[in-house]
């Protein structure tokens, strides 16, 4: 899309869960780009894991994650990730969205979408961007537990 320049600064954050209808709209917008042969999409969904992992004594499950972010920094940190992806793979478009606020188990919180002439480029770009966003963006997640407690999620 013409709005997909790698250097363009945008807000990746969406309040609340990502609606599957929003994913459909994003896909539909690419119908005018007849140089695209494949779209690759990753969607993160909140899992109802056992709180505290295998070592925890709790038998209560995560019911939601409350996401907060250092929003300005996170949006700025997307710029180099986006540039790296466009430099490494011949992709035509890249879109990234992340939820903020309370996202319940079963709801979508993360949406990474790359398009390219050939599937390999789109596939590898989505894998890279998904991993780098998790590593490099200051996004914080409070796991809300069924027994009323909470714990802080960490990707490291």
């Amino acid at each position, binding site marked *: 899309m013409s709005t997909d320049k790698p250097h363009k600064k945008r807000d990746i954050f969406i309040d609340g869960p990502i609606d599957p209808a929003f994913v459909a709209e994003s896909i539909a917008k690419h119908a005018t780009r007849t140089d695209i042969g494949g779209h690759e999409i990753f969607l*993160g969904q909140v899992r109802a894991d056992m709180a505290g992992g295998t070592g925890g004594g709790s038998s209560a499950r995560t019911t939601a994650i409350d*996401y*907060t*972010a*250092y929003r*300005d*920094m*996170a949006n*700025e*940190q997307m710029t180099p990730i986006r540039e790296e992806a466009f430099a490494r793979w011949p992709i035509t478009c890249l879109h990234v969205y*992340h939820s903020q606020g309370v996202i319940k188990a079963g709801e979508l*919180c*993360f949406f990474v979408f790359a398009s390219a002439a050939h599937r390999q480029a789109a596939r590898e770009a989505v894998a890279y961007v*998904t991993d780098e*966003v*998790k*590593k*490099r*963006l*200051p*996004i*914080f*997640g*409070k796991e809300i537990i069924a027994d009323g407690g909470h714990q*802080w*999620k*960490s*990707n*490291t």
Partner: protein
Amino acid sequence: MEVKLFGMIAEKAGAETIAVAAGTVRELRQAAEARIDGLAAMSYAIAVDRRIADDALKLDGNEEVALLPPFAGG
């Protein structure tokens, strides 16, 4: 200078920001750890003007400074 707090650090501090005086990131770290119970035992990063900063970086007090607990996006 005002320091932004996020996630578990904001929770521990019971505040979204704290005010400290510091001429370097190292001094900022020491001042924050003196102010926020348990922070010294945590894994966290310090961002200056929205980039992760080393302890040696000098501060003039006009920077945007933040304490960042482990990232958890996705």
